[in-house]
């Protein structure tokens, strides 16, 4: 039986792991390669690196980071952050990444999903979708949450799946950094509407939150960052808890 996955997320800026609340107030959380090795040893199922560097040197440093991480760990990892061209995707996968996460670029150019899926396989293409509830519907935001789009969350998730994305990484901007649980209501809507795996993101604060997302929203994976970076919740403890509560998990 396929296991549910626990995925630490590492936000990268200028080659360091950073963590903020609601995309601001960044604090340094360590070296990406060191953290990646630690998580791999502690039983993380895979890792996601999101590069939020804005400099012109970004592409070069990201590829060198991917190479270093790929040498250090023997579990799969995804890389995202400002990827907008097939050539960039190819370079990152060649450097050793298993998947790329695409966000703003696919809103502007949805055919990038189908092009990438055709060239590298759906399993290499993660559609990262940031949503915010405006009171009556979930709207899609891009550019790290700074720009609202015309798209509604559920429609865009379905479209991304139809275009050939292999997974949806769904981040609730309302929940991100709050530590009061994932947005299980919306996650369930998405997970039951698409036939590709859904990764829950935004809001994890305690182990019960993960159990709820797996049980109530039926997601395939849960992502968290600060809980793991600052060792508030050790991965092994979380996995034991989920296992005891009937979730199929690798531990």
């Amino acid at each position, binding site marked *: 039986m396929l296991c549910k996955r626990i995925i630490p997320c590492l936000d990268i800026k200028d080659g360091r792991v950073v963590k903020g609340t609601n995309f601001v107030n960044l604090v340094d959380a360590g070296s990406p390669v060191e953290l990646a090795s630690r998580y791999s040893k502690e039983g993380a199922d895979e890792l996601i690196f999101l590069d939020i560097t804005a400099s012109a040197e970004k592409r070069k440093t990201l590829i060198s980071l991917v190479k270093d991480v790929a040498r250090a760990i023997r*579990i799969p990892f995804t890389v995202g952050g400002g990827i907008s061209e097939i050539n960039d995707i190819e370079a990152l996968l060649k450097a050793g990444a298993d998947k790329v996460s695409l966000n703003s670029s696919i809103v502007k150019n949805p055919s990038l999903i189908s092009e990438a899926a055709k060239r590298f396989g759906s399993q*290499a293409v993660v559609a990262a979708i940031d949503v915010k509830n405006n009171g009556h519907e979930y709207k899609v935001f891009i550019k790290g949450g700074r720009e609202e789009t015309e798209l509604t969350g559920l429609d865009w998730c379905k479209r991304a799946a139809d275009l050939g994305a292999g997974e949806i990484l769904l981040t609730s901007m309302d929940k991100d950094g709050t530590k009061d649980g994932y947005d299980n209501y919306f996650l369930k809507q998405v997970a039951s509407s698409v036939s590709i795996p859904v990764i829950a993101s935004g809001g994890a604060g305690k182990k019960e939150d993960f159990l709820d997302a797996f049980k109530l929203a039926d997601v395939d994976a849960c992502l968290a960052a600060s809980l793991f970076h600052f060792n508030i919740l050790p991965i092994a403890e979380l996995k034991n808890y989920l296992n005891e509560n009937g979730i199929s998990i690798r531990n």
Partner: protein
Amino acid sequence: MIALIDYGSGNVASVANALTELEQEFKITSNEAEICRANKIIFPGVGEASYAIRQLHLLNLFTVLRIVKKPMLGICLGMQLMADFSKEGNVACLGIFPVTAEKFDEKKTKVPHMGWNDIQITKESKIFEGIKNGERFYFANSYYLPECPYTTSISNNEINFSASLEKDNFYGVQFHPEKSGDAGLKLLKNFIDL
């Protein structure tokens, strides 16, 4: 020396990293003569089947991979390309394993089949030495090879499918040993030690 085949379709870097960790000498190659000279051949792959087969033809590797006599290990798409036929792009493959790559049913299960799944060993194989039955490996596949007489282990995603196959000097694994932690490294080492 191990020949690690580079045909523009895949996770060559990841397999190379795993071989480096195992302190093995290897050569990344798409050269027919080098492949023939190697003691072991690793045939990795991620991506789309018809594109990958076209690459093999362009690089003139299609025939040599069918007739090599040294142990050859196909990984993920590499394994599926060793079948007769793939429904992914409807393409004739290498014809080593007498099966057709089928797609998982999206109405019954999430596709791609992505993540860590357990395998049940159905036939003794040297590549599983020291690996426990029920061990979990990392998979990322939308297509699968059905069970056949050459299946050595199965996994389940609504239906049972071949997690590994073996025929003469040809080995195939659907999962990614290079991404499956210590158990994956052990399997690669077993193949290298054949």
